[in-house]
Each structure stands twice: as C-alpha cells, then as structure tokens.
C-alpha cells in the first residue's frame, strides 16, 4: 500500500464560471472565465502553470482545447474523461503530480458545453458500432430503478418515499437560491415538487437535474509553496476512487439500494484523511445529487445515516444548511445542472470557499472538513470519486 495524500497538496486558487444556459459562451469562454478567476484568486501569473489536466466529456479531445483557450506555453496537458467524475479525476491526477514532486504549480480545469447539441438530454443513444439491441435508458431511468427498489426493500410506501425525495429537492433549491453562480436560483415548496410531472417513474421533474454549461478551475501546489501565496490555502486530506466492473448487473444478489462504489471510495478517502466518524467529523458535503434518490442513497453509503434511515435523517433537518452536516449547501446539481466535465471542481470550489469562510450567505460556522463526491454510471456499475479537504 502506498502513502496517504493527506496534507501533501494545497489549493491556492479557484475559479468557477456562472452555470446555466450560456448560449453566448463556448467552451473557451467558460474555461477563460474559470481559469482567470483562479489565477487572480491565487495571485499567480498564467505562465507559472507548469502542467494542466483538462476534464471534459464532450467539449473537446486532447489537452489542446485548454492550451488554445488559455494560451498555455507548450506545457504538458492531459485530457481526462471519466463520466460524471471527470472533473474530480482531472483534479486527482493534478494532485498526484504535485505530490510526486514533478511539478510545483499545476492547473486542474473542467469544462462542459452541453447546450450546443440541439437536443436535450445527456445522450445514451448507443455508441456507433454497437449491436444497438439494448434499450436506450437515460440516467433518470437507471436511477429510478434504485428508487423503486428502495421503496420495496425498506417497505416504505412510494408516496412516503416521494415526500422524502421532494424534501431533498426543497433543501437543495433553498441553498441554491443563495448562490449567484447557480443556474437555477429559486426556492421551491414541497407541494410544488410533489405535484410535478413524472419523468421516469418514480422520479418526477424536481427529482432530476438539468442540462447546463459551466467551467471550474483549481490551482494546486505544495503546502510549502502555498504559504508564499496565501495563509488560507486549503489542503487535500484524502481522495478515494472506486470503479465498478458491472458487478451489480452480473451478480443477481446486488440489492439496488446501496451503491458499493460509494462505500469503497468513501472508505478509501476516510482512511487517508484519518476520519473515523464521518457524521461527527465532516462539516459539509457536496454530493452528486443527479437525482434525489441518489442523494438519499449517498447519505447512507457515506456513513451520514444508518442503512434505511436516510429518509428519517433527512426529515430531521440534520443535512440542511444549518444542520449538523450540510449536504449540498451550494445548491447541488439540482441548482447548478450538470456540465459533466465541470461539476466535480465546481463542488470543490464551494468547499474551498466554505473552509476559507468566504461562502457568503451559505457560510457554515467554523468548518473543519469538507467533502466532495461524484458518481458516474448507473446502479450496478459506477465510477465514484470522494475527496476531502481541510485547512
């Protein structure tokens, strides 16, 4: 076993574009917006960047789009694609390069321009060159499978479960209403969420996230160098990652009410960060609420609530903005939408601001540790990343 990444890499600057339907902006605009905010925040010159990692799923290939947008000067750039974990994985690789001592200052940047395709939705229409016999099952359909089973497994009537899910949507929208960078900044009422049309039974309109454009960036260096730039740099405490190999689809005893990849990735991150009791020790968590049911299951998988008790815990308000452990205090995917290649670093941006005490109306009191979580794939086989940050 290798060593923990804990306290070996520091974030000295971050940027995040406004998320939304950015009809007037292309991927270059979104990268420039995010990167230059990060440069300014870190107080560095763009030519200080020694290497970069670009996370994007469908807004360009190779590292060249970042070099061209930011005019990086022949530095090494790796393009990373790992579904919904793309941004966090780009960040993770940048972290390891700094920890390896190969580079002093690096850039991790994620971007996605989704609103140029002419259709809505995130694809899933079968790769060209395949047999095309499997049904097209977009993400809400896949996650709805977990919601149906959750109701059955824990004997919670579906209408009760839907109330819990609606409550999660209400919470995230309440948080997002306080975030000027969010795509959707409106509070909603529980009744409004409950009476929305069905998208993929049992998930309704407010259970699903939207399609948005966005970009986010982070500047990383060693803790020693970080001190030269600022006092309130943020340290990486642990990174966990787990990649499924279709176990849940191939093994008929997989239950669809937990996501094993969440458990594995979070345990790995907790071990690195030295966390024994996540509920007690972690102050806030930006988790992948692509669907409300996903957030509910993540809550249990990450150890914030006992198995089957996620609904009760959410009902108590312990995951609200001023609760014991705030989940998606920035509004989550519910309010930001999901520009796939950018979401992970957008989450880190909020944790970074929270730990610096700069989160404005969403600020938590003296946060010590914050967490980000991404999940790409479908129940049965996911890619999952969990990262933990502190001062």
């Amino acid at each position: 076993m290798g060593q923990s990444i804990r306290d070996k890499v520091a974030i000295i600057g971050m940027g995040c574009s406004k998320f939304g339907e950015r009809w007037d902006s292309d991927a270059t605009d979104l990268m420039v917006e995010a990167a230059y905010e990060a440069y300014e925040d870190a107080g560095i010159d763009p030519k200080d960047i020694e290497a970069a990692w670009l996370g994007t799923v469908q807004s360009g290939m190779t590292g060249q789009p970042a070099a061209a947008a930011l005019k990086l000067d022949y530095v090494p750039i790796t393009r990373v694609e790992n579904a919904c974990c793309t941004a966090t994985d780009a960040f993770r690789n940048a972290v390891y390069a700094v920890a390896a001592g190969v580079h002093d200052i690096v850039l991790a940047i994620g971007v996605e321009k989704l609103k140029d395709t002419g259709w809505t939705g995130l694809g899933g229409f079968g790769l060209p060159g395949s047999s095309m016999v499997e049904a097209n099952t977009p993400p809400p359909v896949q996650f709805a499978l977990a919601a149906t089973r959750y109701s059955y497994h824990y004997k919670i009537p579906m209408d009760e479960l839907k109330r819990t899910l609606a409550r999660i949507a209400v919470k995230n929208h309440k948080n997002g209403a306080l975030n000027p960078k969010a795509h959707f900044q409106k509070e909603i009422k529980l009744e409004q969420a409950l009476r929305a049309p069905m998208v993929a039974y049992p998930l309704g309109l407010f259970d699903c996230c939207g399609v948005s454009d966005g970009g986010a960036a982070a500047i990383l260096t060693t803790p020693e160098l970080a001190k030269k730039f600022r006092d309130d740099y943020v340290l990486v405490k642990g990174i966990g990652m787990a990649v499924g190999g279709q176990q849940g689809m191939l093994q008929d005893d997989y239950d669809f009410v937990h996501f094993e990849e969440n458990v594995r990735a979070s345990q790995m991150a907790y071990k690195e960060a030295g966390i024994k009791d996540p509920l007690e020790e972690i102050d806030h968590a930006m988790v992948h609420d692509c669907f409300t049911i996903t957030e509910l299951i993540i809550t249990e998988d990450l150890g914030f609530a006992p198995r089957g008790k996620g609904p009760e815990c959410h009902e108590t308000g312990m995951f609200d903005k001023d609760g014991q452990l705030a989940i998606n205090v920035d509004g989550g995917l519910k309010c930001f939408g999901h520009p796939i290649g950018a979401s992970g670093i957008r989450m880190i941006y909020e944790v970074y601001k929270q730990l610096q005490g700069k989160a404005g109306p969403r600020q938590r009191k003296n946060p010590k540790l914050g967490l980000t979580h991404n999940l790409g794939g479908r129940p049965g086989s996911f890619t999952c990343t969990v990262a933990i940050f502190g001062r």
Partner: protein
Amino acid sequence: MMRTYTHIELDQEVQSIGGHYSLDKEVRMPYNGREILYIVGLGIIDTSCCGMGGCRYAIVPGYVINWKARTNQHGLAVSDVEPIRDEGTRREISAHIKKTELVQVVDFH
C-alpha cells in the same frame, strides 16, 4: 390514515431546472359513496438530463376527509385526505379518470 393536502395555486407556472408545469384543475369525484380528490397538471420537460417530453397527468391525493379545513403559514388552503393504497381501487380510479380526462398518467400520492 389521514394526511394533509396543501392546495397550490392553479394555472401558475412552477419552474424547475429541467422544465416547468402548471396545475389546471382540482376535481372532487364521487366514488363508492365517498369523494376523491384528483388534480390535473400539464408538464413540459424541455431541458432535463433525460431528454424532452411533456404530458398531461393526474395526481390522486386520496379520499376527501375535510375540504379546505384551514390555511397554512403561507396562506395556502389545507385539506385532510386519506391516501389510497389498495392496488385494485387504484386501478379502478385510474381507469375512471383516464375515461374522463385526457391524461397520460395517473399517480397516487
């Protein structure tokens, strides 16, 4: 079992990141000597991660126990209803509503 039903405004667009909807009407339908409340809505899903669609749909909160008995802190009327859990009854009511309303889906809350 009794549960509250909070009435939200009709003909008002409710927006979400993935689309919007509005409720057209609330209907009190006689059924086996009792009264059932259902509401009819029209949803447009235009920018969700799952594609695009739209539909008219009905939601059945349940049997009416107390109609608009009080108002809540937001000034919205609140009724008491009894949710319908029996699958057979649900099927029957669903068929009945589909006969009278142009709805694609009937959901029970």
